[in-house]
């Protein structure tokens, strides 16, 4: 990683697209500068030798308990749809889907 700029405006735009958050052009540089400062601080990790070290995905060693294959009651549909912004034909309606 370069010692100066760690993240470009183009990368911020890309990340915002991946995260599906609309960011106005005028805001991009502000986010870039903040992320750059944070990533700059985090660059301290570069100096740590982790050769042969396993990652900790779960802080406490556990295994997934397996549940019995039994059907339990679902939620009443009215309750499920009550929170929906738009409902049509018993389903969650959204504006048209562009990509496939």
């Amino acid at each position, binding site marked *: 990683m370069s010692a100066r700029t760690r993240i470009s405006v183009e990368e911020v735009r890309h990340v915002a697209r991946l995260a599906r958050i609309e960011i106005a052009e005028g805001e991009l540089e502000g986010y870039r500068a903040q992320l750059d400062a944070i990533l700059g601080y985090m660059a301290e990790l570069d100096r740590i030798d982790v050769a042969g070290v396993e990652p900790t995905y*779960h*802080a*406490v060693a556990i295994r997934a308990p397996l*549940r019995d294959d039994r059907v339990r009651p679902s939620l009443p549909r009215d309750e499920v749809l009550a929170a929906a912004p738009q409902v049509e034909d018993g389903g969650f309606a959204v504006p048209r889907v562009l990509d496939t």
Partner: protein
Amino acid sequence: MSDETRWQDARALRDRVVGGEVSAEDLVGSFLDRIEREGERLGALLHVDRDGALAQARRVDGRRAAGEVLGPLAGVPVAVKDNLCTRGVPTTCGSRILEGYRPPYDAHVVERLREADAVVVAKTNLDELAMGSSNESSAFGPAKNPWSLDRVPGGSSGGSAAAVAAGLTPVALGSDTGGSVRQPASFCGVTAIKPTYGRVSRWGLVAFASSLDQVGPIARSVRDAASVLGVIAGRDERDATSADRPVDDYAAACERGPAGMRVGVVREALGAGADPEVIAAVGASIEALRALGCEVVDVDLPHAKHAVSVYYLVANAEASSNLARLDGVRYGLRVDAEDVETMTARTRARGFGPEVKRRIMLGTYALSAGYYDAFYLKAQKVRTLIRSDYDRAFERCDLVLTPTSPTAAFALGERVDDPLSMYLADVFTLPPSLAGLCAISTPCGFTRAGLPIGLQLAAPPFEEARLVRAAAAYQDATAWHERHPA
């Protein structure tokens, strides 16, 4: 009812209800009245469920009238952080994106509270989606510190800590990902326990960082915190990370006394960074513990200084994924658009505040192609080194002692524009979280300006009994926890 109940602890209130001295309905009603009078000024509460609370109180009274044995929190009013789902009662997480959202189910801990005959009276303010250390990122305005209204109460469970400190409820639930019950407890002069990862079910806790989140009690005494922990701890098959281990008798542990316990002091933590007043207060607490019969040893956590970097990579990577469900499709805010993609992008643009957006973008970046190994994976490996430090430390001691926060409560607005300085405020609470330990924060003094200072004790996984054993004796000996804001 007068103000006499205000500073009574949960166990005393419960005894009065069980003994028939006061009905749960009257007791809860008096707290609700106080909340209505004083709540607004403090900004600690986002929603007060008066009808639901009184209905539950009447159920408790009915059970008593029917001669049933009442639960360990009978009639006790509890405030619950607004990222814990409450069926039919707004659960906003302090975010516009969930404004008005009413979940169709209760969080596990809320079920447990009701089963213990407690009464959930209100939902407390928090940093938006639990992301923050000051409560200032709440979309509905910050909660304030009852000791000084121009100070932050800490975060993210700032509303819960402020409510308990101000006597609006005797106990509250918060959630702790990197210090979110301990740091606000420290800032507000109250007690909080961050349970071991897996000790309390996360079912119904709106996830911030799934590998770190835990629900924890906030109270004005260790004993109250211990009795709430006893209620909420234990296995829940809906959470695959919930531990299948017996729950210790925390109330009994509070009475056991700390003689013979070995307290490990992290000297480095008392050196660089912390405020001198904090260092002095914590230094005095070490002597107090020694006087109670504890042995004090020095321990070294050489990798703990990397916890801020590790935490903000791991937690935000998980958060970027956890918060993807807030897409405007099934619930919450929707900003209309011609196509679904733009709808979701605009909904999230308007629904999230700047801190949440920053963290989601940072987390997305850390997981994205080309950066995963350098950021996310690297952070998880350094996390292993931090855990190993604790493994070694706990070979020499039973508890690890540090300040909870390097400073007392800072001023509202002081750090909003400098995210990194805000993150550095969590330097002592993050390492135990990353290692999956349990930890407690208890008041250990005050600054000259009259602001509370907190002491943090951390113990190995599932050793919560050790925490309350030492902290209860410490509170008996010092009484810092008995001071109340004016």
